[in-house]
């Protein structure tokens, strides 16, 4: 075979045609190629990695990340030293884009994850209705559905920065990891509410999960008619057990705790039942000694994920400051970045579509010249809501209030490139 030194793809086509139709074996083609391009003694396999010299393996039926990425995982936590009330935080500083992979989505279980069979689970809606009805999972899987990419955040996310007198030495994960973003697909509640026929005095809905502690949050009927869904799919596949299998209530923009996992019963009433979590854990004491209950919206917020706490900038030079912004009330309008502790601000680029109640990724290039810097991000949503400073937030609430901390966050970069959590 006379192989001319033409462009690589032309060579390949010529060789391939001859191989397929000329009856040449793999071995003879290889030998011929070797003779044409190299001297007799050398083979291609000298000095190249092993994986380039051997056929590879098959993919698994359900794929998993590379073993070299084993450090990218949720950070596990116990609350009240309990083995039942536990959680896993999202490693935001190790991810990119806006989608949190389902296996890394934060999850907190006040009563542990229940083992529920899709075959036996039913969703009941009763109370102030014309007819009390229930649906099997299979029935709901055949109902019309909607999909949206939306964030979910715990009301207590960033609690350490809300209450610690001095900034804790933590990573983006340990301080802010109780927030994630996925595509949630499910049945709009309004179809189910129209089926049961809500009576005029129906205003609040007691939403109960099928976990051991029968977790309850009360949701206004108005929200359920608006954009609430019974979520059956997350990121394309069925919602996983630690996210509520076989179904969860998804309330875009509302406190994570209200997005009842393993939802099985909705009791429509005229008043909220005043569940345990609504008494204190999800209520805020203000500086003027009032107790704010039923504060549902997760307010506008942003976090720089890179560079972020406990990371190390290797050398001076160009870096991309990148992070995430979100608002429980709508779309992000603008994210501003400061590298000098808030003296000067510059508008960052927002990536892709800004979606309603979803993560938006922001990016801005930054030249680090080895000076001490303080990086901050400040988000504004489409309604003009803007992140407050830490002092502004603290001035409204008691010293020990942890919920809904959406103040501007700051990362300090020392002269040797060490990134740490700080207050401004």
């Amino acid at each position, binding site marked *: 075979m006379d192989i001319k030194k033409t462009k690589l793809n032309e060579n390949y086509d010529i060789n391939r045609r001859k191989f397929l139709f000329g009856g040449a074996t793999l071995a003879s083609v290889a030998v011929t190629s070797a003779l044409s391009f190299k001297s007799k003694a050398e083979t291609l396999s000298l000095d190249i990695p092993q994986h380039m010299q051997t056929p590879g393996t098959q993919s698994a039926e359900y794929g998993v990340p590379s073993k070299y990425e084993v450090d990218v995982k949720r950070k596990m936590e116990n609350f009240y030293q309990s083995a039942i009330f536990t959680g896993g935080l999202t490693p935001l500083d190790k991810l990119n884009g806006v989608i949190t992979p389902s296996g890394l989505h934060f999850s907190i279980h006040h009563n542990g994850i229940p083992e529920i069979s899709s075959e036996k689970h039913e969703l009941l809606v009763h109370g102030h209705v014309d007819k009390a009805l229930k649906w099997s999972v299979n029935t709901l899987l055949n109902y019309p559905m909607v999909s949206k990419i939306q964030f979910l955040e715990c009301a207590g996310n960033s609690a350490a920065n809300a209450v610690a007198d001095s900034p804790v030495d933590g990573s983006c994960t340990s301080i802010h990891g109780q927030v994630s973003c996925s595509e949630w697909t499910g049945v709009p509640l309004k179809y189910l509410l129209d089926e049961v026929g809500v009576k005029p005095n129906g205003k609040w809905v007691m939403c*109960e999960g099928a976990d*051991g502690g029968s977790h309850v949050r009360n949701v206004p009927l108005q929200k359920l008619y608006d954009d609430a869904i019974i979520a059956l799919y997350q990121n394309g596949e069925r919602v996983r057990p630690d996210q509520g299998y076989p179904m969860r209530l998804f309330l875009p923009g509302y406190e994570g705790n209200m997005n009842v996992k393993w939802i099985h019963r909705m009791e429509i009433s005229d008043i909220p039942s005043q569940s345990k979590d609504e008494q204190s854990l999800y209520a805020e004491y203000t500086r003027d000694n009032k107790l704010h209950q*039923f504060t549902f919206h997760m307010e506008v917020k942003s976090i720089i994920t890179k560079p972020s706490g406990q990371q190390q900038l290797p050398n001076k030079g160009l870096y991309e400051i990148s992070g995430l912004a979100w608002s429980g009330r709508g779309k992000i309008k603008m994210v501003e970045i400061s590298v000098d502790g808030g003296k000067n601000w510059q508008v960052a680029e927002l990536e892709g579509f800004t979606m309603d109640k979803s993560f938006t990724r922001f990016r801005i290039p930054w030249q680090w010249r080895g000076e001490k810097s303080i990086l901050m991000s400040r988000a504004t949503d489409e309604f003009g809501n803007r992140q407050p400073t830490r002092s502004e937030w603290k001035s409204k609430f008691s010293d*020990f209030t942890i919920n809904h901390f959406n103040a501007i966050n700051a990362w300090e970069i020392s002269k040797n490139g060490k990134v740490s959590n700080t207050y401004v």
Partner: protein
Amino acid sequence: MLKSFAVENIKIVTDGGQPISEKELSKWQYTIYPDGRNLPEGEGTALQGKAIYNAQCMACHGESGNNGIGPRLVGKQGYQNNSKNVLMTMSVGAWPHATTIFDYIRRAMPHYAPKSLTDEQVYALTAYILNLNGLIAKDEKLDNVALSKIQMPNESIAINMWEQEVNTQK
């Protein structure tokens, strides 16, 4: 001419829901409302509650209800004993509604064995927690009528922020 087929014009009416029988509905009436709705028959006292508490609750909630590793049952809100443990700033004694104590114990406590207590035991434990908070006497009978009348100290400072926001928008 082809008529347009706008999605907005299609009214979706689903009909896959199945009726729930009265018998089944009767098993789901355990949500307690702040006006006492759904409180069952039964009664208990703090004295009776103390024995149950020491056996089943003390390990997490502490001997006096404010010195355990689990959530605090007794006292006002705020930092305790110079400890900056923010989870311990909350207390059941600071809850706006007493009926929630009954509701929550019955559905979720003890944490390791939820729904293992009888209604009378739940009344007794509710009475004990109220007694530890100085809200009823140790031998006072707590039943559905008495419980719906208990006024918690923080009920008057609680604001329904959702309704406030909705009313402001109107």
